[in-house]
C-alpha cells in the first residue's frame, strides 16, 4: 500500500513541481520593464548619493538639531520589515502553524533584501562613509551602534543560512527538473544543491539544522530590533527615553512584516500565476495573524503614549502636545487611524480578509509604519532640553530634500530588485515542504 503511494509519479508532487518551477523558465516582457524601472530609480538615487558625497550632508535637510532624518527612519523601517523572516520561518513554524508553509521562502527573501538595504542606508547616513572601517579598527562595544553593527551582521548571516537550508532540496529539484535556463543558473542549481539526494540521513541533518536555526533566529531577531530601538532609548530625548521602546519596536516590526508578506503574496500570485497555492484561505489566515499582531502593537502604542501624556513632564509634554495637536498631529493621527485602527477594524470581519481589501489595508499599514518611524525620529529631535535659539531658520524645520527622497526610493527599489532577482532564480514556494506536509497530513486522516 505504501509503495504505491510513494512512487515518483505521485500526481500531487508532479503538479506541484510543474506549477512552482514554471516561472523559472519563463521570461516575460512585463517583468523586464519592471526591472528597468527599478534600475532607473536606483540610478537616480545613486546620482543623489553622488551629490551627497560631493557636497556633504548639506544636501539633506538635516541640521544640528534634527540631526537624524528620513535615512534613520527608513533604516528602522527596513530593519522592521526584515523581522518577517523570523516570524514565518521560526515563530509560526515552531508553533506548528502549517498554513504558513508556502510563505516561508517569500518571507526569508524579503528579510534578506530588507536587511541588506538597511545596512546600506545606514552607511548612506554616515557623514564619513570613507571611514567605515574605523568601526572595526576603533569599535567601542559600549556603543549601541556597535551592537547594531554586530547584530545586523549576525542576523544577515542567519537569514542567509535559513534561506539556503530550506532551499537545498528545492535546488536539487531544480537541478534535476529545470533544464531550459541559462547556463549560469544551472551551474547555481548544481553547485548549491550540494549533492542532495533526499536520503534519510540528509533529511535528518536538514531537519536538525533547520530546527536549530529557527530556534536561534528568535533571540537574534528580537535582539536586532531591540538594539535598533536602543539607538533611541539610551538617550534622553523626549519620546525616546522610554523603556518600552524595545518591545514596542519588535511588535511594530512584526506587524509591518506581516503586511509586507500580504503585499508580496498578492503580487507574486498574479505575476507567477500561483493562485492555487497562495489562495484566499491563506489570505484569511494572514488577515487573522495581522489583526493579532496589530492588536499587540496597538497595546504597546498605548503604553508608549499614555504614560507620558498622563504626566506631561517638561519637554516630554511639549513633544506629546506637538504630536497630538501640533505640527505633526495630522501625520500622527493619520498613522494611528489609517495605519493601525482601521485595518484592525476591517480585518476583524471576514469580508475584510479577502485579497484585494487586504492588499489595500497592508499598503496602509506599511505607509503608516514608515511614517510612524518618521514620527519617532524627527519630532523628538526637534524638542531638545534647551531651547532652539539664535539659529538659521533651516535648523528649526525638517522637510526632506529631493536627494533624501531619491535615496530613500532607491533603497526601496533595491529591496524590490533583490526580491525579484531571488524569486526569478528560486522556486518561490518551498516544494519539498509542501510535499512533506501533504504526506504527514494525509496519513492520520486515512485511518
Amino acid at each position, binding site marked *: 500500500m505504501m509503495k504505491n503511494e510513494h512512487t515518483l509519479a505521485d500526481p500531487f508532487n508532479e503538479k506541484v513541481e510543474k506549477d512552482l518551477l514554471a516561472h523559472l523558465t519563463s521570461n516575460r516582457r512585463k517583468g523586464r520593464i519592471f526591472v528597468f524601472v527599478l534600475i532607473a530609480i536606483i540610478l537616480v538615487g545613486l546620482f543623489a548619493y553622488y551629490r551627497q558625497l560631493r557636497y556633504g550632508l548639506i544636501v539633506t535637510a538635516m541640521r544640528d538639531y534634527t540631526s537624524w532624518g528620513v535615512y534613520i527612519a527608513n533604516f528602522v523601517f527596513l530593519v522592521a520589515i526584515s523581522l518577517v523572516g523570523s516570524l514565518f520561518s521560526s515563530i509560526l513554524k515552531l508553533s506548528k502553524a502549517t498554513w504558513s508553509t508556502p510563505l516561508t521562502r517569500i518571507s526569508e527573501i524579503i528579510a534578506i533584501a530588507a536587511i541588506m538595504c538597511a545596512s546600506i542606508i545606514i552607511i548612506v547616513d554616515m557623514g564619513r562613509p570613507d571611514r567605515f572601517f574605523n568601526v572595526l579598527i576603533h569599535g567601542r562595544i*559600549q556603543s549601541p551602534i556597535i551592537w547594531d553593527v554586530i547584530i545586523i551582521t*549576525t542576523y544577515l*548571516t542567519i537569514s542567509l543560512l535559513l534561506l*539556503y*537550508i530550506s532551499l537545498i532540496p528545492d535546488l536539487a529539484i531544480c537541478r534535476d527538473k529545470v533544464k531550459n535556463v541559462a547556463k549560469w543558473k544551472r551551474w547555481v542549481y548544481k553547485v548549491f544543491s*550540494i549533492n*542532495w539526494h533526499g536520503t534519510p540521513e540528509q533529511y535528518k541533518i536538514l531537519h536538525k*539544522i533547520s530546527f536549530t*536555526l529557527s530556534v536561534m533566529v528568535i533571540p537574534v531577531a528580537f535582539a536586532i530590533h531591540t538594539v535598533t530601538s536602543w539607538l533611541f532609548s539610551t538617550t534622553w530625548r523626549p519620546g525616546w527615553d522610554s523603556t518600552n521602546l524595545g518591545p514596542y519596536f519588535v511588535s511594530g516590526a512584526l506587524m509591518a512584516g506581516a503586511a509586507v508578506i500580504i503585499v508580496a503574496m498578492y503580487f507574486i500570485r498574479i505575476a507567477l500565476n500561483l493562485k492555487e497555492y497562495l489562495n484566499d484561505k491563506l489570505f484569511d489566515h494572514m488577515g487573522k495573524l495581522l489583526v493579532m499582531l496589530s492588536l499587540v502593537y496597538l497595546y504597546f502604542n498605548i503604553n508608549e503614549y499614555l504614560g507620558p501624556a498622563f504626566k506631561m513632564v517638561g519637554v516630554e509634554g511639549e513633544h506629546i502636545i506637538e504630536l497630538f495637536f501640533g505640527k505633526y498631529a495630522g501625520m500622527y493621527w493619520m498613522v494611528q487611524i489609517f495605519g493601525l485602527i482601521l485595518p484592525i477594524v476591517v480585518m476583524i470581519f471576514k469580508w475584510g480578509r479577502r485579497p484585494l481589501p487586504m492588499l489595500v489595508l497592508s499598503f496602509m499599514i506599511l505607509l503608516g509604519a514608515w511614517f510612524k518611524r518618521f514620527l519617532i525620529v524627527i519630532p523628538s529631535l526637534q524638542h531638545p532640553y534647551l531651547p532652539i535659539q539664535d539659529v538659521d531658520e533651516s535648523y528649526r524645520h525638517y522637510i526632506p530634500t529631493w536627494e533624501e527622497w531619491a535615496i530613500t526610493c532607491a533603497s526601496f527599489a533595491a529591496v524590490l530588485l533583490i526580491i525579484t532577482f531571488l524569486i526569478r532564480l528560486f522556486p518561490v514556494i518551498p516544494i519539498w515542504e509542501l510535499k512533506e506536509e501533504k504526506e504527514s497530513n494525509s496519513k492520520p486522516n486515512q485511518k
Partner: protein
Amino acid sequence: MNNLFKYILFGFMALIFATGDISAQGKKTTRLQVEYYKNHDKMEMLIATLIAKERRYVPLAGAMIRFYSVNDTSKALLEELVTNDEGKVVLKINDNSKIFYDPSGIMTFEVEYGGNSSYKSVQRQISVKRANLDVFFFQKDSIKSIEVNASEIGPDNLITPIQGLHVRFYIKGTFSLLDIGKEKTDQYGNARIDFPVYMPGDTAGVIKIVVKIEDDDDYGTIESRGEINWGIPVKVIKKERRGLGDTDAPLWMVYTLIILLSAVWFHYLYVIYMIIKIKLAR
C-alpha cells in the same frame, strides 16, 4: 564673524599705511607703560608695553623700544628691543648692565619709543629702589602662618627693613594667583598672615605660596616664592575606569558579548558543518 574680525584688522592696517605716508599731522597717540619687576630668583627686569590709539588702544607689535639708564648727569643706552604681539618687551637687567645710581641708591630708567610716520613717539621714566622680599613659614600647633620680610638694599649693600609696605599673599593656581590676604610690614619689615585651614595642594599636598609687593612707587614689583606641604593632597585620576564612558569597555560587557556572540556564531559554524555533512552523505 571670524572674517569680519580679520577685515577690520586689515582695514586698520591699510589705514595706518595709507595715512602714515600722507600726513605726519595725523599721527596716532601712543602710550608706554613701564614696570620694574624682580622675580623670586632675584632677577630684575623692565617690562614695557606699548599701545597705540586706533579706535581704542591696541598693542603695537614690532616696535623698537630703547632702554636707557639715567641719572642727573649721564644717560646710557642699555638695549634696543622689539615689541611682541602683545606690544610687550622685556629687558633683563644683569650684572653687566651699566646702571647709574643716585646717592640714595635709586635707579632711574628711561624707556623710549621713537615713533614713525604713523605713530607719535613716547617716552617714560621710572625710578626704583632695590629691595628684597623673603618668605618664611611658621607652624605652631595647628596654627600655620606665612611671614614675609621686606628690606631695602642701600647704596653700599646696606640692608634696612622697610616699614608700612603693602604685601600681598597668594597661592599659585594653574591660571592665576589666588589671593589669600594682604598685610602691612611692621617696623622690622615683617608681615604675617595665617594660612587658610583647608587648601588643596598637589598630589603630595605641596602648595606654592607667592608673596608680592605690587607696583609700589618706590620698589616696583617684587615677588618671592616658597613651597610648603600644608595643602590637602589631591587625588589624581591616572586613567578613566573601564566604564561606559571610557574607550575600554567594562570587562563584564566584553565577556557577555563574547559569550552571546560565540553562542550564536558557533551554531552558524555548526550549521555550515552540517551542510558539508549533507554534501558528503550519500
